[in-house]
């Protein structure tokens, strides 16, 4: 794409400024500071890519007037031209793309012509200033660095891969390190080996311990033999010691036996048997005595006499008195109370009869009809009367509501009528308003077109003036034109006003407006011919004149077309303010129309409502009349019913119901009175009967009472009952005593027999023991016991001696030895042997402990698993070390291979952008820097100087860095140009920091670039202009166009 020309309507301090056509490959814009070079650059960026989204009106505002924006004519790589017109407005500013034929195209065409590059790309790569050149933002731009940094070359994960490898490698082994896995395994291995060395000594220790065990076994055997000898000696001594006591015991016993008399025989257990028999005799004697006492008592009881024994013949009466005693008491006690209650009931009945009225007595009460049928009839009349009354009341209430509603409707209707009458009627209807609005829009468009053409006419006139040498004073020419213009404006205004206002204004407006327009045309054309008659023209004026004539013809044609369009309505073009006023007046008419329509609708609604409510009131009145008639009918029927039952016909159903209630009450009271009378009679009868029983018995058995005092009667009854019980008891005792006497005599006989038996047995025992009495018997028993015991002791002593010695002669030998023995000497010898044995025991114990320890230790040495475990661990660690080593080797090799591949790759496979940039950079620096490359997997650029030293951009001087960034841009421009539409390169003072030689080479690089891309250079330095000119000459191409600015 190339820029053909620029037209600034208003941008910065430029207004209505045109530059172009720009037909050469390189154009240098030369102007002093503040001439507007940067403004041009920014203008190009803005028109092509849009205003900033925010505060766009402050982006190079049109300080000198004119519409904020402008137009650029561009030509794509195929040569097709487009006009790109953009102005400040919403968003990035409305843009219009038109062809040279005037056809308007869509925004997508612009995007295509711009190679679908964004504003950022254009600014970063194609159109940049010195500041942008100095910044390293280029390398950070994501649109750029993807072109530079080997994207898609399969190495995006390279840095991470290298880090991972190194990390894994170092974890396995790191020279100089001590925390890696191989070191840790080796440390553990050394520890295992030291422990194995210790365990290896077990073998030597085994031999030593085995020899010692043998020695211990020999000593152990010797000590055991010695101990056995001591045991034997001690055994002998103990025998003699224990035999010595038995021997003494034997001798003593035999001595005592000689002193005790001999009793050959005596009853076994004699004393105990004697005591048992004595106890039996005593017990039998006691029981015999008790049986005798019992018999005596029974005889005494039999002889006792009982008074009033005859009462036992009246036992039945006594039982009746007993059973009726409580009832008699209650009856006698309650009778007065009952009588009092009867009196109360009778009084209540009398009152009720009095309330009912004269003539009411008990017979009348009983004769009154209280049936359910009558009650139902009363209830029926009661509810009928209630319903009829309620209905009437409801109807009357509805009538009142209907009359109120009707009054409200009448009032609302009146109010709506008044509003309609007072509101002015609109003059236009909806269709008329719509038509008027359309007219205004049409007029506005036409006006715009006329403005543009008029401007063109003005421009051409100015040009023509410049090319002619007119005799007419400039002021006069201008003056007549001014009058013509003013006349035209007023004429149009009158036409429009008449059209808008309509009515009588319309013809007036049309006539006046057309008159003024005619005057304006005359003035304008007469001025022109004067000019043409008197002016001396340049040869160049003819084409200008022709253009002017064409424009004027076009203007007239437009005006004529507008007149034709507007004539049915009497409209022609007006200015903007008139159009706005017309629009406003249409808005007012529209509002009036809406109000009028609304009020008319309200009035119609009110009238309808009034009609409805009048009808409702009439219906309510009819309902009230009907309800009144129904109530009268019910009341007549009720009165007839009362009269038939001789009840006052003024009674209401409620009153009759109350009368019924009183009659029911009276009947109830009458029933109560009768009941109480019966009960009192029954009580009195009970009392009489009970007294009749008491009286004869009391007389017969001397019990006093008063027949009229129920309390004495009750006391007498109690006394008779008590007397009966006493007699009964005494007679019973006497009967029991007879039976007792018989039993006691039988028992007495038995006890006598037991006593005799016991005494006989005791006599036999005493005789068997050789005694006559118990005391003597006991003495003999004691002597016999002593002898027996002594004989036993002698036998035991002999037995023990025999066990110690053995049977036969050995016993005699032992006895003999004992007879001759010194027991103390034996004891002393035993102590000595005891001590020696204890020493031997201690030594044996120690040897046994040592033997056990040796055996355990030997078993442990043989069975220990520690060494097996350590050997396994050692092998395991060795394997681990070798496995870690292998893993390390793999990673070290991987690292090395990646490094070699990376170097090779960087040497041979740089991206196209970098290759292009390298070529430019080498040329600009005259070979000082030979290589530019992007290290694989890194986001940076590196250059290599002629000494092979690699440097990053930050390590270069400012100028060289700018040259590098310029070269990268050239590379990007070339690379992008191979794929999409070429764009112009627009630069602003980018060579100022270059030394002359490099600046010239850079200029030549621009010249080379201009073979494919248009180059626009902005500068304030004349040296820069000369640079480009020289560069073009040296490159053998056409010199650049130099355009002065300011």
């Amino acid at each position: 794409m190339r820029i053909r020309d620029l037209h600034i309507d208003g941008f910065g301090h430029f207004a209505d400024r045109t530059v172009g056509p720009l037909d050469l490959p390189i154009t240098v814009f030369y102007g002093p500071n503040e001439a507007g070079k940067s403004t041009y650059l920014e203008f190009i960026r803005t028109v092509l890519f849009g205003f900033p989204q925010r505060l766009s009106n402050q982006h190079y505002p049109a300080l000198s007037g004119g519409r904020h924006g402008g137009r650029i004519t561009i030509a794509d790589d195929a040569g097709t031209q487009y006009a790109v017109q953009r102005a400040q407005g919403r968003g990035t500013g409305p843009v219009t793309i038109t062809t040279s034929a005037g056809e308007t195209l869509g925004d997508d065409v612009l995007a295509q012509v711009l190679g679908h590059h964004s504003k950022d790309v254009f600014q970063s790569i194609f159109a940049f200033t010195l500041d942008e050149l100095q910044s390293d933002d280029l390398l950070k731009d994501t649109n750029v660095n993807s072109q530079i940094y080997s994207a898609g070359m399969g190495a995006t994960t390279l840095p991470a891969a290298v880090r991972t490898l190194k990390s894994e490698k170092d974890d396995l082994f790191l020279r100089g390190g001590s925390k890696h896995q191989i070191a840790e395994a080796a440390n553990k291995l050394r520890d295992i080996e030291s422990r194995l060395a210790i365990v290896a000594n077990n073998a030597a220790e085994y031999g030593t311990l085995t020899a010692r065990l043998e020695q211990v076994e020999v000593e152990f055997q010797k000590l055991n033999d010695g101990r056995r000898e001591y045991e034997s000696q001690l055994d002998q001594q103990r025998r003699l010691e224990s035999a010595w006591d038995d021997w003494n015991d034997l001798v003593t016993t035999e001595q005592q036996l000689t002193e005790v008399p001999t009793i050959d025989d005596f009853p076994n257990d004699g004393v105990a048997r004697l005591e048992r028999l004595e106890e039996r005799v005593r017990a039998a004697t006691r029981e015999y005595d008790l049986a005798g006492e019992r018999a005596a008592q029974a005889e005494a009881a039999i002889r006792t006499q009982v008074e009033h024994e005859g009462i036992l013949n009246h036992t039945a009466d006594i039982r009746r008195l007993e059973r009726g005693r409580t009832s008699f008491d209650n009856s006698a006690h309650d009778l007065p109370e009952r009588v009092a209650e009867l009196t109360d009931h009778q009084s209540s009945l009398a009152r009720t009869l009095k309330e009912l009225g004269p003539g009411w007595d008990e017979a009348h009460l009983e004769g009154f009809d209280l049936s359910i049928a009558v009650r139902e009839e009363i209830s029926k009349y009661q509810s009928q009367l209630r319903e009829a009354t309620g209905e009437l009341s409801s109807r009357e209430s509805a009538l009142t509501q209907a009359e109120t509603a009707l009054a409200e409707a009448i009032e609302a209707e009146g109010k709506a009528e008044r509003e309609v009458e007072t509101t002015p009627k609109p003059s236009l209807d909806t269709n008329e308003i719509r038509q008027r609005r359309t007219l205004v829009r049409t007029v506005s468009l036409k006006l715009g077109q006329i403005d543009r053409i008029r401007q063109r006419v003005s421009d051409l006139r100015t040009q023509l003036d410049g090319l002619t040498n007119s005799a007419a004073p400039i002021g006069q020419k201008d003056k007549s034109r001014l009058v013509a213009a003013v006349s035209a404006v007023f004429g149009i205004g009158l036409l429009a006003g008449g059209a808008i206002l309509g009515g009588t204004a319309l013809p007036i407006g049309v006539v006046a407006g057309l008159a003024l327009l005619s005057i304006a045309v005359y003035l304008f054309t007469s001025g022109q011919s004067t000019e043409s008659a008197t002016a001396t023209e340049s040869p160049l004026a003819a084409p200008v004149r022709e253009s002017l004539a064409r424009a004027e013809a076009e203007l007239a044609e437009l005006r004529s077309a507008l007149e034709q369009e507007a004539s049915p309505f009497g409209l022609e073009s007006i200015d903007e303010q008139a159009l706005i006023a017309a629009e406003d007046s249409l808005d007012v008419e529209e509002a009036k129309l809406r109000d009028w329509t609304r009020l008319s609708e309200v009035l119609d609604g009110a009238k309808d409502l009034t009609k409805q409510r009048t009808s409702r009131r009439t219906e309510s009145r009819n309902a009230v009349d009907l309800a009144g008639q129904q109530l009268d009918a019910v009341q007549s029927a009720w009165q007839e019913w009362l009269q038939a039952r001789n009840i006052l016909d003024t009674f209401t159903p409620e009153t009759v119901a109350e009368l019924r209630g009183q009659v029911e009450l009276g009947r109830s009271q009458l029933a109560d009175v009768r009941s109480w009378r019966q009960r009192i009679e029954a009580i009195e009868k009970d009392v009489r009967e009970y007294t009749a029983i008491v009286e004869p018995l009391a007389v017969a058995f001397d019990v006093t009472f008063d027949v009229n005092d129920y309390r004495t009667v009750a006391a007498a009854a109690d006394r008779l009952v008590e007397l009966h019980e006493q007699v009964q008891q005494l007679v019973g005792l006497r009967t029991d005593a007879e039976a007792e006497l018989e039993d006691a005599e039988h028992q007495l006989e038995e006890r006598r027999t037991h006593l005799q038996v016991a005494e006989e047995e005791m006599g036999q025992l005493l005789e068997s023991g050789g005694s006559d009495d118990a005391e003597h018997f006991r003495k003999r028993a004691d002597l016999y016991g002593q002898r027996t015991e002594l004989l036993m002791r002698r036998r035991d002593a002999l037995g023990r001696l025999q066990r110690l010695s053995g049977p036969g002669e050995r016993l005699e030998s032992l006895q003999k030895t004992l007879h001759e023995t010194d027991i103390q000497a034996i004891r002393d010898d035993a102590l000595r042997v005891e001590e020696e044995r204890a020493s031997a025991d201690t030594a044996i114990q120690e040897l046994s402990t040592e033997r056990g320890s040796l055996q355990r230790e030997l078993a442990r040495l043989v069975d220990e698993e520690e060494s097996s475990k350590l050997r396994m661990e050692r092998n395991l660690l060795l394997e681990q070390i070798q496995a870690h080593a292998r893993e390390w080797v793999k990673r070290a090799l991987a690292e090395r291979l990646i490094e070699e591949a990376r170097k090779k790759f960087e040497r041979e496979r740089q991206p196209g952008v970098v290759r292009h940039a390298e070529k430019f950079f080498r040329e600009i620096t005259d070979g000082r820097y030979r290589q530019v490359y992007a290290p694989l997997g890194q986001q940076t650029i590196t250059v290599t100087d002629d000494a092979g030293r690699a440097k990053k951009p930050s390590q270069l001087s400012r100028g060289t860095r700018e040259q590098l960034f310029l070269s990268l841009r050239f590379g990007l421009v070339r690379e992008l140009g191979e794929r999409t539409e070429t764009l112009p390169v627009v630069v602003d003072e980018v060579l100022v920091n270059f030394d002359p030689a490099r600046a010239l080479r850079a200029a030549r690089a621009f010249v080379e670039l201009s073979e494919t891309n248009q180059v626009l250079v902005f500068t304030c330095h004349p040296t820069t202009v000369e640079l480009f000119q020289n560069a073009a000459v040296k490159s053998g191409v056409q010199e650049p166009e130099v355009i002065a600015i300011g």
Partner: protein
Amino acid sequence: MPSATLVTEPDSKVLREMARLRFVHAADLHLDSPFTGLKAAAPENVAKTLYGATFAAYENIIDLCISERVDALLIAGDVYDSADRSLRAQRKFVDGLERLHDAGIRSFVCHGNHDPLNGWEARLSYPSSCHRFGPEFEAVPVFEDEPGRAVVHGISYPQRDVTENLVRRLGKVEAGPFSIGLLHANVDNDPNHPAYAPCTLDDLVQAGVDYWALGHVHTRRVLNQQGPTVVYPGNPQGRHPNETGPRGVYLVDVDDFGQVNLDFRPMDTVRWERLNVNIVGMDTEQDLLDDLHQVMEDAIERAEQRSIVVRITLSGRGTLHSFLRRSGAMDSLLEDINDRWAEQSPFAWCERIEDETASPFNRQERIEGSDFVADLLRLCDQSKTDPELLTQLRDSLSDLYDHRTFARYLKDSVPSDNDMAVLIDEAESIAVNLLVEDDPQ
């Protein structure tokens, strides 16, 4: 057509009745020598079993001798490792021989490179029925009351490194009694074992011995079936991940005609297994876990009630590779496996899961490209054949293999040229996995 005659192997009892001689041929017991090749510490229950595995196998051998009522037990060297100085090993060995003595069974022992005659001994008393061969060939009759029935010719290593062909010392054995040669040797230069007492099969054949009871090679092998029978029984308990499959001894029956019947009897109590699981086609971790558990279950079934130590290798290219690369993923899998299988009895302990998987990656296609990864692949290929580049790569490893502290642990594992080629391939795989981790297939 005549009906086929069913030929069956005579059972052990019948053979016993028919045999002129019956013996058990064992070798390389390596009592109390630790397992090698383990890369992870075993849990307590497993470790205890591993410590005692060689002893348990030996006990099984003694039980076999007694139950089969053999005439003799022949052990061809490497009973234990003298360098270990294990009292337990020697004590247990003697205890076993004493059991045989009590059962009236003779034992013949020669010593090899691990237990040479000049090695350490605990000075234990061997039973009188056991004959231990010295540094020169001796001919000892199996049956003292029938010296003409069978004779054992045996020799032990006087020291560890015996590089002489010991068979030459035997000379030619004359025909007569059934002769057995008991020797610890490397026949025909097996490269997997040190070249001690090297000899050829022809040397053995020419010696005139009827049965060569060999030791030294841990994998059982019958080098010659008859005339003479030359046998390596292998070790009775595998102690290395490469020593997979059943391990045991040969029960040998010799009939009156000198025909030898070999009957292999497994004696091991713990068996090694190497399992492979390919991740191709697997989408989820659960798929992988299910497969892992399945292969473990299959391995247990094959082990016939024995405990097993398993090393699993994951291979193949698949989407699960990225999951496996995550920190802790392998440990998590290992823990899951062992939680289920390692605690039971008999146990199945997975000692290690090796990740040899790779992300879906078409090497052939990528190497044709022009990006960095293609360059790397081409460089890897070049490095295997470019001596200068190979030297540079090897030099880059010197930091480790020449380290003054660690070199001694690694001196036997310095990569050879063949190793380098394999290592370069593995390095390439690591590099590619890091660079193209998210590359679609």
